């Protein structure tokens, strides 16, 4: 996927292929079988601005859906990250840089990979169309 290839405001970009979304602005992408990649959405990054620091769990850690698993922060805000699906952390993005996470939050700037312990957790998440509606509502509330 190419970042920002479309001529729409970046914060409104909601990639559709195999992405699921939370109402706390994390994205989940199903890699194979029961392993998912997790990151923050363009909307989240745009609201935060340049991300300069983050705290992530370690490989092997068991996470429960909706618990806080880490944080990202910009000069403006600290933002907690919430576990979108329960499972074990099988990989942490070790090549993360402020540039990667700020410029490509939905590709190279991914955060962690989780091996799901309950597959139907995905069904609890928003599909791209619902998430798009959700962020448009948030934007309205902000303006």
């Amino acid at each position: 996927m190419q970042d920002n290839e479309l001529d729409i405001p970046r914060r409104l970009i909601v990639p559709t292929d195999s992405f699921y979304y939370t109402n706390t602005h994390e994205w989940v992408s199903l890699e194979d079988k029961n392993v998912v990649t997790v990151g923050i959405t363009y909307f989240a990054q745009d609201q935060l601005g340049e991300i300069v620091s983050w705290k992530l769990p370690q490989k092997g850690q068991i996470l429960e859906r909706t618990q806080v698993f880490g944080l990202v922060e910009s000069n403006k805000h600290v933002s907690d990250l919430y576990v979108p699906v329960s499972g074990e952390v099988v990989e942490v993005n070790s090549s993360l840089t402020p540039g990667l996470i700020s410029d490509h939050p939905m590709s190279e700037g991914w955060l962690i990979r989780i091996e799901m312990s309950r597959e139907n957790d995905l069904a609890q998440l928003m599909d791209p169309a619902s998430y798009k509606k959700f962020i448009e509502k948030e934007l309205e509330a902000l303006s």
Partner: protein
Amino acid sequence: MNKLKTTPLFESHKKRGAKIVPFVGWKMPLEFTNAKKEHLSVRESVGIFDVSHMGEIHIKDPKALEFLSSVLTNNIQDLKDNHCQYTLMCNEQGGVLDDMILYCLKKPSDYLLCVNAGNTEKILKWMRAHSSISIEDVSSKWGQIAVQGPYSKTLIEKIFQPNHLKKFQFDFADFSGSAHLISRTGYTGEDGFEILSPQNKVLDLWEKLLSLKANPIGLAARNTLRLEMKYPLYGPDMDETVSPVEMGLSWACKNKSDFIGKEACFKKTQRRWVGFEILEKSGIPRTSYSVFSEDKELIGNVTSGAFSPSLEKMIGLALVKKDFSEQGRRFFVQIHGNLALSQVVPTPFYVLNK
């Protein structure tokens, strides 16, 4: 955000797609494009800031100098016509009520104070409680634009003739048929000007500056720019619980007269306001985060901090026990449950390219 005030430039900011946030009772632009780019553009070229929210107080009275000498900390007696100075107002306990710029329009009877937006009412009330001379709130008459950066003079020359103005001098000049007050001052450390523009002209001036390719700058960059210079921000960095001397602002307390809070200001205290940088990977040191000694003793707290866009480091300001204030002194800042090793460094953090 219903009851928040807006500046005459608000609609223009919204149209440009600026991110708007509430700030001390005003709807202000946080960033226009990207705070980091905005910050660097002020360091490298020139940026313009909407600071129309600032409060302006006009003191025109034969006893103006006499009265102001009794409430302001700096040496107003030495201030000549068309000069301005950084000064503070304190309460009886020596606590800072506000910091401000004082413009001498005509010594000894005509002065203008530019105060922080959130403190305008408080300062008016305070002054009126201590004097019956003429003190007028003229905040609603004036908008204000700051032009800051190494190319600010080049830019301003296309509109005004500022060549005779040295640092902390000001003059009046015409734009669009109205008198504007232009001072060579700012809050970024860079060369620059602050222009008081009548409410009904400030949008024209803003649009004119934009048409000359000036970058509009939001509050986020304004904050990191001032932080790199260790300029205090009223509220997070100082308030009525701290004295100018503790803040290292005794250079702005040279008033030889007896001003309110003077004695208390100069009483020996055990705290100092220092600049530090974090020596390891960490989060951002934020307002009110605790500072600990190597022996895990609580020695103070962070007043503000950020990831410095110019230096690409975590930097911060903290009010700490005096014993921990000398350069090179190490301490820990508690950030998200971790203790981040930090060190007192020389300030300003950012050294200007001269």
